[in-house]
Each structure stands twice: as C-alpha cells, then as structure tokens.
C-alpha cells in the first residue's frame, strides 16, 4: 500500500473520521469549559454526527474498497451507518437532558458515544479479521464504560463490570475462532478465506462454530442471552437505549458480512443451527417478558425476542436471498425507531434519583402528559407489530420472506410469538392510560421531547408509507449479495 492509496482510503472513510475527530475535540474542549456550560457540548456532538450522516449519504453512489481491501464501502455499509448515526444522534439528544438530571459528565459521555458509533460504522464495513476484531472491541469497550458510567450508582457500575467480564469472555472465544480460521486458511481476509474453504479440515468447522458463538452472544440470542436483562437493567436508561439499538444492529451487520462472505460454504449447516436459535430466542424472550413488573427489564427481554425475529429473516434468506436479507436490514432499521423511542420515553420520565422503570411509575401518564402517552402508545404498538406502525411492516416483511422461502413452521412460530408479545406491550398502555397517578412526573424537557416526537412520527409515518425506506433496504441487500 503506497502513500497515494493511503490518502485515497483516508478520504473514503471521512464519515467515520468526522465522528472520531469530534470525539477528540470534545475531549480537548471539556476541561476548558465551565461546568455550567458543559451541557452545550451536546451541540458539537450533534454537529459531528450530522456531518457524518451527510458524508455517509454519498456512499450510496459508489462501491469502493479502502486500505487494500480491508474495508468495503458499499451500500450495505451506508445503510447500516444510517442506522447507527440516527440511533446515536437521537440517543444523545435524549441523553442531554437525562445527564443534566442525573448529574453525570457531559463531555466524556458524548465522546464515548461517538467513539462507539465510529467503531460500529467501521465494523459494518470491515472485511478483514484484524480490523473487524478491533472495531468490535472499540464498540464493546466504549459500551462497557457507558454501562458503568453512573459511578454513584452501584447498579450501574455492577452492570458495567458484568458486561465487561461476559463480553470479554465472548471476545476471547471469537478471537480463538479467528485464530483457527487464520491457521486453516492462512489469511485474515474474508474473500480469501471463502475461496480456500475446505470442508475436510476440522479447523474450519471448529473456527466457524467459535465465531458463531461469539456473535450469538453479542446479538443476544439463545443460548447466550442471559446477560441482556441484567445489564440492560443496570445501565443508565439512555445508554440502554443506545446499546440495545446500536450494538445489536452492528452485531447483525458483522454477522451477515462474515457468514455470507466468509463461510458461505457451510451455509446449510449454520442455517440449520440458526433456525433452532431463532425459534428459542423468540420464545424464551417473550415468555420471560410476560412476567416482568419492570418496564426496563421487560424491554430487555423483548429485545431478545426481537433479535429472534430478525434471525428469522436470515434463515429465510437461505431460500429467498434478496427478500430475506432486505427484511433483516429493514427490521433493524425499524427496531431502531421503536426501541430507542421506548427507552427514550422512559428516560424522559425519569427523575433525578429515581429511574422510571416499574409499571406503577407510569400510571396516570395520560392525565398528566397526554402527548408523551401518545408517543409511548405508538412505540408499544410498533413493538407489538400492530398496523399502521413501522413495526408491523417490518414483521410482515420478515414473516413473508420466511413463507416465500418455505419455512412455514418458522413463520407460524414467529407469528404466534408476535401475538403473544402484544399482551405485555399493551399492559404498559393499560397502566399509562387507565390507572390513577401514583408518582410525580418530571418537568418538561423540550429537546428530549423533540427527539421523542421525531422517533414516534418516524415510527408512524414510515409505517404508513414504508416504500422508500424499504427500497433502500433492498438496494443495500443487493449490493451485498455476491
């Protein structure tokens, strides 16, 4: 790689660089700003994210590879980057008021969100295992720190350390799997691994299995899902929203990239495993969510079952490649709006020393804050998959692709689960609309309210007119299929 190529590649990753640079600027500025004004660092963060977003839109026009094939910058990457940046941007908007309420540190928080997002963005484009592993770690380590960010709260620190230990365990497994694949193929590039794949060699099989285990952990699918409720419950509310959306989407992106590009020779085998995993993930997530009294914990379990629905799309892509893959991509896009919205609303309703997380905490919401109650209603309808929201359209596409690919049982189990899930989502609304007020609600926070309005309008309008965003998902999936 000569200097010219390095320069050219550097220009190609300007969206990621703009985030990283903004993070660095925040770190430098932070000590010079008086405490009173620190919350205004938010505007710099938002500016950096918006610049990244704008630069990323360019990527829909070309497909390039940068750094000697290390990164592949195509529509798939661009699509996922949109998800990450939207998630990060809206999460920071809501965080600004939340941090102010809970007296956390502004500068470091935003910087970590930016670094984590840039890790996700690079992760979705990485086609080589060294960069892939490092981006994976940049994303994960930032999120471990964010989970433990509220160091005055033992719960938060505890969730941070638990996340670090379990996440470190899974990355060690992933690393060992990569070592075996490297040993068997002599390369760390996905295309070369695919071309040298040899079913006779046990190292390939073992390596694929270990890498699958590493990714299944990050996606939060059965049987490695037990960490999710604990860690989601302990982390600060906005962080939970951010990681339930961003980390999950990034894990799906890298999963698709690695398994479809690198290990497609073994497709039949891992698809069968995924079938089983997705059935158990949906069902177990749903059954556990039903009995929860805490909304935060319920949403954590429901995020497990949503990972299961997205996996249905991956399995369906075995028969219907394009439809299946684009339905997964679309599902993750829709999930960003509805899940971030749900956690964002809870963050909006949290008080200084008490997070709004139990069902009782939101009773009487309709009388006191009707607009927030309507937004919460849209998010819950969307999560339950009730028309005309975005969640309905996404689920419809996933199950349709499963039926087209003739996975009838999978589609039936998925639909049954989806019906079952309506119970616990609607129970939240019963408390919000029909019960008397028990707790006090915080004062209005205009910026957060604005973000929640965008999320709920997005979930509604994109549900009524889904075609444009669906086209985008099809284009992204098309650029990715070899």
């Amino acid at each position: 790689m000569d200097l010219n190529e390095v320069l050219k590649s550097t220009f190609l990753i300007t969206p990621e660089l703009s985030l990283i640079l903004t993070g660095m600027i925040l770190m430098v500025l932070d000590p010079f700003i008086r405490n009173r004004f620190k919350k205004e660092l938010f505007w710099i963060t938002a500016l950096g994210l918006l610049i990244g977003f704008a630069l990323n839109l360019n990527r829909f026009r070309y497909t390039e590879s940068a750094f000697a094939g290390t990164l592949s910058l195509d529509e798939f990457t661009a699509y996922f980057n949109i998800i990450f940046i939207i998630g990060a941007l809206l999460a920071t908007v809501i965080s600004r008021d939340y941090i102010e309420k809970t007296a956390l540190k502004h500068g470091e928080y935003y910087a970590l969100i930016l670094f984590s997002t840039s890790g996700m963005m690079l992760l979705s484009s990485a086609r080589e295992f060294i960069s892939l592993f490092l981006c994976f770690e940049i994303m994960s380590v930032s999120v471990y720190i964010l989970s433990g960010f509220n160091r005055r709260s033992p719960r938060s620190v505890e969730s941070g350390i638990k996340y670090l230990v379990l996440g470190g365990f899974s990355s060690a497994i992933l690393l060992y799997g990569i070592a075996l694949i490297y040993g068997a193929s002599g390369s760390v590039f996905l295309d070369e691994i695919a071309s040298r794949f040899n079913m006779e060699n046990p190292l390939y099989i073992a390596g694929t299995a270990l890498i699958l285990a590493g990714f299944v952990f990050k996606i939060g699918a059965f049987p490695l899902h037990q960490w999710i409720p604990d860690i989601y419950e302990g982390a600060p509310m906005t962080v939970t929203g951010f990681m339930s959306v961003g980390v999950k989407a990034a894990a799906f992106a890298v999963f698709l990239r690695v398994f479809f590009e690198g290990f497609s020779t073994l497709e039949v085998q891992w698809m069968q495993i995924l079938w089983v995993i997705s059935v158990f993930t949906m069902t177990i997530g749903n059954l556990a969510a039903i009995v929860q009294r805490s909304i935060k914990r319920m949403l954590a379990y429901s995020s497990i079952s949503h990972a299961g629905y997205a996996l249905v799309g991956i399995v369906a892509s075995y028969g219907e490649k394009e439809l299946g893959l684009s339905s997964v991509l679309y599902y993750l896009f829709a999930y960003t709006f509805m899940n971030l919205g749900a956690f964002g609303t809870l963050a909006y309703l949290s008080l200084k020393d008490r997070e709004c997380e139990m069902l009782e905490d939101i009773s009487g919401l309709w009388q006191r804050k009707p607009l927030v109650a309507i937004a919460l209603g849209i998010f819950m309808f969307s999560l339950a998959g009730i028309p005309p929201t975005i969640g309905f359209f996404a689920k419809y596409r996933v199950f349709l692709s499963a039926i087209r690919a003739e996975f009838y049982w999978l589609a039936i189990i998925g639909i049954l689960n989806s019906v079952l899930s309506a119970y616990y989502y609607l129970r939240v609304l019963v408390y919000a609309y029909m019960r008397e007020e028990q707790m006090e609600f915080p004062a209005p926070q205009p910026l957060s309210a604005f973000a929640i309005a965008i999320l709920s309008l997005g979930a509604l309008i994109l549900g009524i007119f889904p075609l444009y965003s669906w086209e985008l998902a099809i284009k992204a999936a098309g650029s990715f299929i070899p």
Partner: protein
Amino acid sequence: MMGVPIEHYLVLSAILFVIGAYGVIIRKNLIIVLMSLELMLNSANIAFVAFSRALSDMTGHVFMIMALTVAAVEVAVGLALVVAIYMHKETLDIDVLKMLKG
C-alpha cells in the same frame, strides 16, 4: 524441520484456553476472573504465533500484537470498574453483587 510438531503448541493453547474459560466460569473473585480472561486471550496468541510459524506468514504476529492491546485495554477498564465496585460494596464476590437479579 522443527523438533516439536506444531500441533503440540496448538494443543497447549487449547488446554490453556480451557483452563482460562473454566476459571471465568467457576471463580467468584472478580480480579481472578479478569486474570482468567487474560489466560484465554493469551492462549489465542499462542495459536496465532504457532500458525504463523506453520504457514511462514507474518500476519499472525500482527494479530498477536493487536490482541495484546485489546487484552491490556480490557484489563485497564476492568480493574477500574473493580475499584469502583469495591468502593461501593467492600467485596469482590460476584455473587454478592446481587442488586441485579440474575
């Protein structure tokens, strides 16, 4: 050709990996859990370097350096969190940290 067959290095790395994984699972002292994580990452490094030798390819060495950085980062952040949790609870027992049910 070498005196020791390369698969013996690899078996050693697999054994160390399993010891590390077992340590993460059975131990309750957070600091020792972090050490067991180090053992796991270190065993992957042995595998990388051994494969590098067998393939006469330097990529494994580069990967080992990166994995080492990752190990250092995880330990630094992990120990910081351990110190923070100790300030709250005066214990390092994973089981006592039961604020989160699960």
